[in-house]
C-alpha cells in the first residue's frame, strides 16, 4: 500500500513539473512535446491506479489518455503548425518569469486550501488532490497568459489532465471512464475547430488577437 502510494505520488509530481515546463517553452513544437509527455505520465498514473487498486475499468481511461492525448493530438497539432508555416514562436501576454512566479503562487494556494480539509481515507486522496488542483490551475494560467489558439488548446488539455488525475484519485468515483470519453469528444471538437474551420484561411493567422478584431460590435 505504501509503495503504491509513493509511486502514484511520484507520477502526479512529474505531471506538475511538466505543467511548469509548459509555461516556459519558447517554441510551439516544444510545448506540444511537453504536453505529450504530461499525457503519457497521466496514462501511467491512471494505469498504476487501475492495477494497484484493482479497478480494471480505469485501464480504458489510461488507454484513451495515452493514444489520444499522448500521440494523436500532439502529432495532429504538430502537423497543423508545420503546415501553417508561421508562428512557430509562443506568443506571450506576460513574460516567463512572471508566469512561473504566479504558477508557484497557485501551487502554494492549492496546498494551503487542501491542508484545511480534514484527512479523508487515510490522507491518500488529500495529497493527490493538491497536486491535481495545482495542475488544473496551471493549465488555467497557461490559457490566460498564452494567446495563440494552439497553446490555448494545450492549456485546456493540460487542465483536463489534472481533472482526470483528480477523478482517478477519488476512490471509487463512478463515471470516470464516461467522463474521460466525454472530454475526449470535447478535445476532438477543439482540434476540429482549429483544423476544419481553418481559422488561418480566414484570418491569415491563428493569433487570437486577430479573432478579436472580428467581433461584430466593432464593425
Amino acid at each position: 500500500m505504501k509503495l503504491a502510494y509513493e509511486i502514484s505520488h511520484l507520477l502526479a509530481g512529474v505531471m506538475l513539473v511538466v505543467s511548469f515546463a509548459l509555461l516556459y517553452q519558447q517554441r510551439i513544437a516544444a510545448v506540444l512535446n511537453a504536453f505529450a509527455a504530461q499525457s503519457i505520465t497521466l496514462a501511467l498514473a491512471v494505469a498504476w491506479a487501475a492495477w494497484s487498486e484493482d479497478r480494471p475499468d480505469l485501464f480504458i481511461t489510461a488507454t484513451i489518455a495515452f493514444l489520444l492525448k499522448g500521440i494523436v493530438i500532439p502529432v495532429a497539432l504538430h502537423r497543423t503548425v508545420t503546415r501553417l508555416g508561421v508562428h512557430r514562436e509562443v506568443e506571450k501576454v506576460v513574460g516567463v518569469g512572471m508566469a512561473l512566479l504566479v504558477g508557484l503562487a497557485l501551487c502554494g494556494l492549492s496546498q494551503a486550501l487542501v491542508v484545511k480539509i480534514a484527512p479523508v481515507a487515510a490522507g491518500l486522496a488529500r495529497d493527490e488532490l493538491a497536486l491535481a488542483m495545482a495542475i488544473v490551475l496551471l493549465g488555467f494560467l497557461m490559457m490566460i497568459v498564452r494567446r495563440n489558439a494552439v497553446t490555448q488548446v494545450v492549456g485546456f488539455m493540460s487542465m483536463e489532465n489534472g481533472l482526470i488525475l483528480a477523478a482517478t484519485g477519488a476512490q471509487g468515483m463512478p463515471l470516470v471512464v464516461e467522463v474521460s470519453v466525454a472530454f475526449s469528444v470535447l478535445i476532438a471538437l477543439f482540434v476540429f475547430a482549429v483544423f476544419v474551420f481553418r481559422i488561418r484561411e480566414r484570418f491569415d493567422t491563428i493569433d487570437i488577437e486577430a479573432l478579436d478584431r472580428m467581433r461584430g460590435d466593432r464593425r
Partner: protein
Amino acid sequence: MIEAYQAVVLVPYAAALVLAAVPGYRVGAIGNVIASAAAFAAGLWLMLGPPTVGSYAIVDEFNVLFVAINTLVGFTTALFSASYIGHEIETGRLSPGFLRFYHAMFQAMMGSMNLALVANNIGLMWVGLELATLITVVMVGLYRTPQAIEAAWKYFILASVGISLAFFGTILVYLAGQPVLGEGLQSMTWSLLQATAVRMDPALLDLAFIFLLIGYGTKVGLAPLHAWLPDAHAEGPTPISAVLSGLLLNVALYALLRFKMLMAGQPAALDPGPIMVVMGLVSLIFAAFMLYQRRDIKRFFAYSSIEHMGLMVFAFGMGGPLANFAGLLHMAMHSLTKSSIFFAVGHVAQAKGTQRFAEIRGLSVSHPRLAVALALAVLAIAGLPPFGVFTSEFLILTTTFARQPWLALLPAFGLLVGFGALLLRLQDTIFGEPVGPAHRVDASSVPMVLHLMLVLAAGLYLPPALVIWFRRAAELLG
C-alpha cells in the same frame, strides 16, 4: 411503461435521431415542432404527477418548474423556428443540409437540458449541462462567418473552462460525500448528499462550492465571466439566441441553486448567500451600464439577459421564502419575455436585413404591428406594470427593502439604469424616419404574442394554484 421524467429526456433524444435522418427541411421543421409539442406534453404530465426520488432521477416542485418552462419555451421556439428558418435558406445563409443538422441538434439540446434538470446525480447533471453547452457552441458557429466563428471560439474556450472547473467541484463534492455515504454511485446521488450534508467536511464543501460557483457561474453569465454571452447570442441563429437566454442560462442557474441547497445543509460551511448577492449585483449594475454602448440589437438584449440573471442570483442570494419566490417568478417571467423579444428581433432582422441599431429606425411607419409587439415586449422586460416582470421585480425590491433597506438601493439603481437604456433604444428603433430596406416578414408572430399574453396574464392575476406551486418550490430552496 415509461415514466414522465424519462419521457422529457427520451422524447427529444429520439426525435434528434429521427430528425437527423429526415431529408427536406420543411418536413424537418414540422417534425421539430411535433417533437417539441410531445416534450411539452411530457413536461405537463411530469407537472401533474407526484414528486419522486429515484437513484438516477429526482422530481420535486423545484425542478418541475424548470422543466415546465423549458419544454414550453422549447415548443414555442420550435414553432417560431419553423416559420423563420426557411428565410435563412432563401437568403443563402444556410444550406438544407445544415438545416437538417440544426433541427437534430435543437432536439438534442432540449433533451440534454431536461437531463440536467431531472438528474438526481451530480455527475449526470454535469454531463447534461455540458452536452447542451457543446451543442449551442456548434449552433452559434452555424453560419460560419468570421464573426460567428470568433463567437463560437470564445464561447468554446470560456465554456470549456467553466465545464472543467465545475467538474473539479463535482469531484470535490464526491470526496466530501464519500466518507459519509461510502464509495460508488450513492456519493454522487443528489438527494442522499443533501440528506447527509451535515456530516460532511465543511472545508471540502467550501472549496467545492467555489469551483462550482465559478464553473456554473460562467454559464449563468455572471460578470466578470460573461464575455462569451453577448457574442454567442448575436452571431447564432435567432431561435438559438431565444433558447440560450430563455433556457440554458436557467439550467445553469438551477445547477448552482442545487449546490446552494447542499451548502445550506452544513451550517459550518460558508454561506453562499452573501457571495451570490455580490456577484448578482455586480452583474446587474455592470450589464445595465453596458447596455448604453451596444450597437447591435441582439448584443443589446444579451446584456439585458446578464442584467436579469444578476437580479435573480441576487434574489436567491438573499434567500428566505419570499425572495426565493420572487426569484423563481422572475426567472419564469424573464424566460417568457426575453424569448418573445428575441422572436421579435428575428422579425426585425428579417424586415431590415441587419442587426445594427443604426439601420433599424422608424419601425412604426414601415412595420406597425411588429413595432407594437416589440414595444410591448421591451416595456415588459423593462419592468413596467401590468406585466409579470413588474410583479417579480417589485417583490424582489420590497422584500430586500424590508430586510436590508440600504441594500435595496443597489438593485433599484441598476434596474433604473437599465430601464433608461431600454427606453432610449426603443424610441430610436420605433420612431423616426424609416431607413434602409423594408422586406416582407415571413416568420409567425403567434409564439411572440402567446408569450406576451402569458406574461401579461401573470402580471394581472396569478392563479392560487400557481402561487402555491411557486411557494413550495421556494420553500425547497430554503
